[in-house]
């Protein structure tokens, strides 16, 4: 649940979601649910030449289970808060 709560904080910020099929999409995080399904808006495919079909797309829904990484904006990461939250989670809430 830690990642869910954390990603919810990032709604409205720009993130890059890298999928397990190597497709990487940059966009504004519109919403995220408990399965880490992600909705992005104003998207842009990082490697447009490799994925020309994605160029026509402005928003998308990504299945949480196919996400490999989410790259965060620098100002979206408060290391201290994340550190505390991780510890709290680790203590077994």
């Amino acid at each position: 649940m830690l990642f869910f709560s954390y990603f919810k904080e990032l709604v409205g910020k720009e993130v890059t979601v890298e999928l397990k099929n190597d497709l990487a999409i940059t966009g504004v995080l519109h919403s995220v649910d408990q399965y880490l399904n992600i909705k992005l808006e104003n998207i842009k495919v990082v490697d447009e030449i490799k994925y020309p079909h994605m160029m026509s797309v402005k928003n998308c829904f990504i299945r949480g289970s196919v996400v490999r990484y989410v790259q965060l904006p620098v100002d979206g990461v408060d290391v201290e808060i994340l550190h505390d939250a991780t510890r709290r989670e680790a203590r077994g809430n």
Partner: protein
Amino acid sequence: MKSGGLVAVPDRGGDGAPILDEAEGESFAMLQPFVGIVLGDSDAQESGTLYITTRRLVWLSDRDISKGYAVDFLSLSMHAISRDLEAYPSPCVYCQIENGDDEYCEDDEDEEEDEVANGDANLSKIREMRLVPQDPAVLDNIFQVLCECAALNPDPQGEREGEGEWFFNAEEVMASENLERGMEGLEVQDSRFEDAEEDPEDE
């Protein structure tokens, strides 16, 4: 349950709709007539009816009652609305499909054999699909229903197990350290094998 990618749906019910797996609790979430389908890189668009159920996206051809396709939500890795007419000539819902087998057996030999026996085996290689409604006004609705139904189908929890041994709290970490220390202690204190120390004469 394994995600199966795109599959053929050769049968339909008496009412012309897909046959649901009611025992598994499958029900209809949306019915949208006059939706074209485009598979992979093909230019060919065929008209049909789109059904979204609580478990799958099903498309049935208008022209050929033995023709239809389905993809379960576990295999539907992404869906999006495409409205940029320069990139694609008709507004549509763009889908990416993954096949659960991908990671494990690319270029599977069995698949090649299936292909000879049945042209539809090619379907398992389809990674992209476009749904082109005659009326673009329904695009948002299709998108939304797909989002809602995708959320009803999280991956089975079991798949996550075995990905690695994780410690979830400090006690567990300490417990494992104590265990190791305990083992060391055992070795040191165990006198049973004292006379079994390396004896050069034995070798």
